[in-house]
């Protein structure tokens, strides 16, 4: 690895005006979150007996997990397939994934009725092996652990030889340093175990998120219900991994006045059409095989959403990524990546509460303002923590202007 590909903390001012706005949004989210905790779900959400799963499940949990797929796809690309060229994006992707999954958990705390029981699925006497959600929970828990383990070397790199605990704790400096070095050494040798485990666990729970709604064949619109849902969720998540990395790389670059690293992003985008193509093929093939295409012009919410999230926000980016000009153009990449990410977000929302038609609902579910506020607040928090961590830790590639 050449010197200029080394990662380093970002040397930029932390409290920019943009960050202040972010903090404002975060506080708003926190406020609504507190309100939910004190005054119950009914006071904040429009969830009801007909629609038990709403925006928080669709976005915070399902989309959050899908968009954090960049972590395992880039890991697989660099460490399993040995494509060292993309090394620079691994750490940011890892950080995104780590934060993404962490906030999936935090978001879940607000959605669960009995959030204080969130540890129950890890207790063997409460394991229910037939449940899809059980598998999702276990895999996410394990994967989060793997992500933290994968993140330890970054912390080690930052603090090895520079441990400086404040005040009385300074006595532990050497001990901490020894621990960090040991961790770094051991993990260096065995990291591949965790990396591959991460890919396997990711495949398992990304697909199982799709299997969740397979249990409701009479409530999910035929355009969306399919026994292929796990494969659809898996392929769409794998396909969104690189666009997320691209987008996040460009946004971080923009935030820190860096030019987008096109020599990494362009070949990354070159792989997107293949992954997107598989997803599109599976989706269209499934519709043809099961004959559900008859509902395409129905005008129902599900059919409209399919045209938007699949017809517009998946197929168009597919063609865009195929174009060399788009791949070489930062703006083109930005638009294509954003479109597909939006497509995945809308897809998850549709599966969980738009194409979901409970038998006795009198009106459709529209998320309440508190739900939007908390979700946006959580996203703002992710961005905030991301910024904090890249400022603190060597995640992003080192930049000459900042050195």
């Amino acid at each position, binding site marked *: 690895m050449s010197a200029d590909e080394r990662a380093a903390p970002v040397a930029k001012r932390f409290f920019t005006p943009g960050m202040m706005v972010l903090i404002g949004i975060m506080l708003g989210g926190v406020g609504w979150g507190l309100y939910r905790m004190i005054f119950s779900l009914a006071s904040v959400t429009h969830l009801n007996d007909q629609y038990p799963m709403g925006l928080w499940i669709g976005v915070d949990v399902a989309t959050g997990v899908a968009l954090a797929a960049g972590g395992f796809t880039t890991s697989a690309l660099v460490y399993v397939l040995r494509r060292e060229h993309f090394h620079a994006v691994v750490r940011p992707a890892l950080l995104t994934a780590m934060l993404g999954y962490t906030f999936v958990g935090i978001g879940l705390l607000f959605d669960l009725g009995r959030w204080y029981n969130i540890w129950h699925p890890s207790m063997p006497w409460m394991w229910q092996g037939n449940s899809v959600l059980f598998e999702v929970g276990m895999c996410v828990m394990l994967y989060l652990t793997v992500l933290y383990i994968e993140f330890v070397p970054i912390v080690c790199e930052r603090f090895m030889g520079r441990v400086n605990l404040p005040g009385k704790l300074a006595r532990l400096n050497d001990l901490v340093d020894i621990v960090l070095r040991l961790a770094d050494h051991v993990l260096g040798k065995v990291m591949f175990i965790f990396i591959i485990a991460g890919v396997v666990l990711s495949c398992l729970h990304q697909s199982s998120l799709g299997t969740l709604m397979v249990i409701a064949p009479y409530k999910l619109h035929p355009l969306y*219900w399919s026994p292929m849902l796990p494969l659809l969720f898996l392929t769409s998540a794998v396909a969104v991994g690189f666009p997320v990395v691209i987008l996040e790389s460009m946004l971080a670059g923009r935030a820190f006045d860096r030019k987008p690293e096109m020599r990494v992003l362009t070949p990354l985008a070159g792989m997107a059409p293949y992954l997107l193509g598989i997803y599109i093929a599976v989706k269209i093939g499934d519709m043809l095989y099961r004959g559900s295409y008859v509902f395409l012009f*129905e005008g129902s919410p599900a059919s409209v959403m399919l045209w938007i999230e699949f017809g*517009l926000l998946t*197929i*168009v980016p597919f*063609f865009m990524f195929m174009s060399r*000009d788009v791949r070489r153009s930062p703006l083109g990449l930005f638009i294509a990546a954003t479109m597909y990410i939006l497509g995945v977000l809308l897809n998850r929302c549709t599966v969980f509460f738009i194409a979901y038609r409970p038998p006795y609902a009198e009106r459709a579910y529209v998320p309440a303002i508190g739900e939007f506020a908390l979700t946006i607040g959580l996203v703002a928090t992710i961005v905030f923590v991301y910024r904090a961590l890249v400022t603190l830790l060597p995640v992003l590639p080192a930049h000459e202007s900042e050195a």
Partner: protein
Amino acid sequence: MINRSTACGIIGCLAIACLAALGCKDRSDSNASVQGASPAGQARFITISDVFGELERPPVRFDHDKHTLALEKEGCQPCHRADDQGNFLFTYLNVEEQSDSTALMNVFHDECTGCHTSRAQEGKETGPVTCGECHAIERAYDEHEYVPVMPDYYEVLRDTYHSDCTACHREPSKTAKDAGALDWKSFYVTHKKTEAEWPGVTFDYLTHAEHVEALEDQCGLCHYISPQKLEELKAEGREPAGRDWVWDVDRKTSLTRRRPAHARCINCHLQRRTEADEGGPVHCGECHSGATRTIEELADVARPDCGQDDMMLIQLDQGARAKAVAFNHQSHVANSRSCQDCHHKTLRACQDCHTVDGDEKAHGITLAEAHHEVSSSRSCVGCHEAEKHKAECAGCHQLMPGGLVHAGCSGCHTGTLDRLQTPGKLPPPEELIPEDVGDEILIGRIEDAYGPVRLPHLHKVQELTEISNNSALASYFHTDRMTVCTGCHHLGPMEAKADVPSCATCHTARDEPGSSTPTLLGSYHQRCLGCHQRMDPAEQEMPQSCTGCHEEKAPGDKCLAAAQE
């Protein structure tokens, strides 16, 4: 940035959209054949199924009344051909002659749109000319129902296989022997809004009497006797009587095979309009109004003189295995709205078409079925079952097993006209009720939150006896003196003046989990309240609320009652 590559992307997107559109064929089922126009503004679908097969475009909604009103001055000529005598064939031009779908389609397209176009050119009010205006369909969101079908994983559910066809008719690789493979895609999109049904034409005795008067007794203008029949009658030495005339189609000279009514009625009405300036209706909705007169309203209308015996024995001339059935033709005529109620539209005698083994004339329905089928309004048993649903009968009959199996054959197959000629009546209740049973019976066995019921027993039995005696049908079949008693005391046999077992003998007061016999509380309510509901749906006389039968006790009274026991 919007360069060639992005343009390619957009074109690709559109291409996929077009492919998808092409792939989305309309899956409308081809159903009924060409029909006439619409009652109350609801259009009919033109989807001639045997020729068109699976439709490529939505079926056309054709509103006949709109056309008859718009073309009032032109009359029927623009669309319907006439024969040499000037009688119209009420099918659309020459569609009956077209044997392949393209030719048929062309007839519709050329004629319909041709006429619409020429009228537009003349500046007259006209109809649509573009494809989508005729082949339009409202895509209602909830029109589709779907059932997902998957290969079966739960093979332990063996019992369900026998009650569910899909268990055997599956994808070829898992088909049971001799069961055909069923395309599971056909389980999608099965439900469509049903077409509007034509209400029947109201042609009852009154309408018939009006026609008889207007046409001065000339039966031959509407009815028909075949030459064979005339021969038979000559051999018998008898003149044609009313019942020999049938409403049928002379297949050699008929103007149209399918619509003798339209051919005869409308043509005649049209003729009389031009000749005598007074004709019958010609617009669809005027005949197909769906209005029916009640039997009471038709009570004074003269019945057609059909020359049938008032009372007769229905029997097979040869090979009869049961005794003849005594039949009161006169009372049936008095209690019906038209001859067609029993004799179909053809007005033939039953045994003309319904043979013992089933004939194609009768669509395979055997003689026995024709008389015994419970679900048919024309069969004897079917009509009688329907009569039992009337309010005055349903009270007792709702809890009795319906259908033929429990009734037995000897009720009808008596072999003699005796009981018809001298109908029996039920005796007054005083002759049947034991002496020690009072006029009013106190039912207080399970008194709890509510007080005891005072049942006006004698009064009830008198009412029911009167209902039975006033009905010829009921009187004929209620041969047992204790009939009314068995309505409530439902397990016979019963003897006059003898005690009956109390309800609590079988219907226990305490609950027996798993028993199919209702508890005492349940059986009282099902019997009493059920009867009241059926006999008095409007809740005018018979109480149907809790306090209507027994007063509600204040909470403290319960203890008092218990203490007094």
